[in-house]
């Protein structure tokens, strides 16, 4: 089989090192020139947008569109950067691009870049604090995940430029999912995110596990999409529009008994979204997909996809339950979701105990964390549960990224991720062991880490709603969680291992440092994050 065409420059470089060097500098200069021009043009557009057509252009940028456009353009730029011979540039470029998008989406919310006008953009996207905070969590997580990918830069089989581009495209979908004001945008966002993830799951083409994970994810994901869409169709049949305002008006004007079709549509849509966040009766694809996918993309899936899914669930469920608008609808569905929460917590935590693979354990732990998040969604209090979800997603994402970073460093090129690889890590690489320990403590919810306050806020919000039995179940399951998270810590510090010393790349060190500092900072001063946005 001929090697992929992208590898040709690398092969050529080995033969004629001297001949190639000037050309690569030329590439860089052209690139900087183009970037410079683009920045000048963009700044001119923003500065002198008094003219009418420029005003129109500015209007496109309203309401979340700017960050979406930026991410898409940067993603395409990334694809072209893949032609460069120096692969490091792609990594730095994609991190810089994500950072720019992060800054822009934050400025966008505060209205310093553009003025706020709800009538523009057809009301497709919201630009409120909630969606921007979710966007912040996801973009920050992406920034932390990118440096973990340095091993792809040396791998000749890999196509890092394409991976980064697809990751950025999937971020577009994730941002759409947390900021939609129209069901069309929800659907398109879910699909952009999912299709990108199908591709990335199967990106390890010659590995049968990766192939299998991709096919399972694809079939289950598109099945869930079908259910989601059928729910949307039924809801549309009852409401007659896709906008969230229309749905809210309909829900406040009608009782559940009078509109079985809308309720069925709501339930099917909820099932479709629960598939995506891997809640319990619909979780069966998760462990296989998480185990089979390359670890980098598993980290992405278990953090960003989950955050986006929970954000979408929160926004969607709010339409059907917020007191006083949908007050009559809440009793009709909260029991069903409570059962889903209990199942998710029980299955996720108890099955995680029996895993021999660390990665598979993290998959089940991801399921159980989806349960805690869903619990806060169920509480549905306008302030405390939103706060809890935002805090929990940040704490969970940061700790999970650190755990996967440690796993990727320890497992290296081995195709399995057994607990035994961690034996004696406390002696061979104390830094790595310490950072994995901190992330495990945070995931288990031990005080002085972010995970503790995440769980505390979730339980408080559920308590406020008066669902005491849920709190009891959740606390019990959190105790089960401590067991399997501590297994790793025990393996690292108390078991003797004859594994080779682990080499950690500088990118991984940076990610682990930042993630652990964030985890501890949020665990000591949780108000830091809460006051910043909420």
């Amino acid at each position: 089989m001929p090697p992929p065409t992208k590898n040709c420059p690398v092969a050529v470089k080995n033969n004629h090192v001297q001949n190639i060097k000037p050309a690569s500098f030329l590439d860089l200069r052209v690139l900087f020139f183009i970037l410079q021009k683009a920045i000048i043009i963009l700044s001119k557009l923003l500065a002198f947008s008094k003219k009418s057509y420029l005003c129109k252009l500015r209007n496109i940028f309203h309401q979340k569109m700017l960050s979406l456009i930026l991410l898409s353009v940067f993603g395409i730029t990334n694809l072209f950067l893949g032609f460069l011979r120096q692969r490091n540039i792609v990594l730095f470029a994609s991190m810089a691009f994500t950072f720019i998008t992060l800054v822009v989406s934050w400025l966008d919310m505060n209205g310093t870049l553009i003025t706020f006008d709800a009538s523009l953009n057809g009301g497709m996207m919201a630009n409120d604090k909630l969606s921007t905070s979710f966007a912040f969590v996801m973009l920050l997580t992406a920034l932390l995940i990118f440096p973990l990918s340095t091993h792809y830069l040396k791998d000749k089989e890999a196509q890092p430029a394409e991976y980064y581009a697809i990751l950025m495209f999937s971020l577009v979908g994730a941002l759409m999912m947390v900021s939609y004001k129209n069901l069309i945008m929800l659907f398109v966002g879910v699909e952009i995110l999912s299709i990108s993830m199908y591709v990335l799951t199967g990106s390890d083409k010659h590995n049968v596990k990766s192939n299998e994970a991709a096919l399972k994810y694809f079939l289950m994901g598109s099945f869930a999409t079908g259910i989601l869409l059928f729910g949307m169709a039924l809801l549309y049949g009852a409401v007659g529009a896709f906008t969230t305002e229309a749905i809210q008006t309909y829900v406040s004007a009608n009782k559940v008994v009078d509109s079985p079709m809308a309720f069925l549509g709501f339930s099917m849509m909820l099932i479709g979204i629960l598939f995506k966040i891997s809640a319990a009766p619909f979780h069966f694809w998760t462990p296989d997909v998480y185990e089979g996918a390359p670890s980098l993309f598993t980290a992405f899936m278990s953090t960003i996809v989950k955050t986006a899914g929970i954000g979408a669930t929160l926004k969607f469920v709010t339409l059907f339950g917020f007191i006083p608008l949908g007050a009559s609808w809440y009793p009709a569905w909260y029991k069903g979701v409570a059962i889903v929460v209990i199942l998710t917590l029980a299955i996720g935590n108890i099955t995680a105990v029996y895993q021999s693979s660390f990665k598979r354990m993290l998959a089940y732990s991801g399921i159980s964390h989806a349960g805690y998040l869903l619990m806060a969604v169920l509480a549905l209090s306008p302030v405390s549960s939103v706060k809890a979800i935002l805090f929990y997603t940040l704490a969970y994402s940061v700790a999970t990224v650190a755990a996967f970073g440690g796993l990727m460093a320890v497992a290296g090129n081995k195709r399995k991720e057994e607990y035994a690889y961690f034996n004696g890590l406390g002696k061979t690489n104390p830094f790595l062991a310490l950072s994995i320990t901190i992330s495990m403590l945070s995931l288990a919810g031990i005080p002085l880490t972010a995970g503790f306050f995440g769980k505390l806020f979730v339980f408080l919000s559920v308590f406020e709603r008066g669902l005491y039995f849920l709190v009891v179940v959740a606390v019990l399951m959190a105790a089960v969680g401590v067991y399997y998270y501590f297994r790793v810590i025990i393996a690292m510090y108390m078991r003797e291992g004859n594994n080779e010393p682990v080499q950690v790349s500088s990118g991984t060190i940076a990610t682990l440092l930042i993630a652990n500092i964030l985890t501890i900072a949020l665990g000591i001063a949780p108000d830091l994050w809460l006051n910043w946005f909420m």
Partner: protein
Amino acid sequence: MSDVIANIPVNYYVFFATALFCIGVVGVLTRRNSLIVFMSVEIMLNAVNVLFVAFSSYKSDPAGQVFVFFIMAVAAAEVAVGLAIIVMIYRNLRTVDTGALNHLKW
């Protein structure tokens, strides 16, 4: 001809689309060949399309028909990715039977 279509009550469309959707769901759950599972998913999506168009013309609201175009575009993208994945599986395993997918177990 258009009179005939206008005279069909919207309920019939709902029943028809639901039946199509159920055929798709049963196909996904029972078939072993991943291509046929994939085709069943497409049937589900097209059932949704029928339902959207029916509601859209019944309520004389164009948004539903716009949605159908979105679904078609997304379904096309999904077909591209899905067939690529199935071809990749076939190259490595020489089969597209879902029963052969047993490498990931605990």
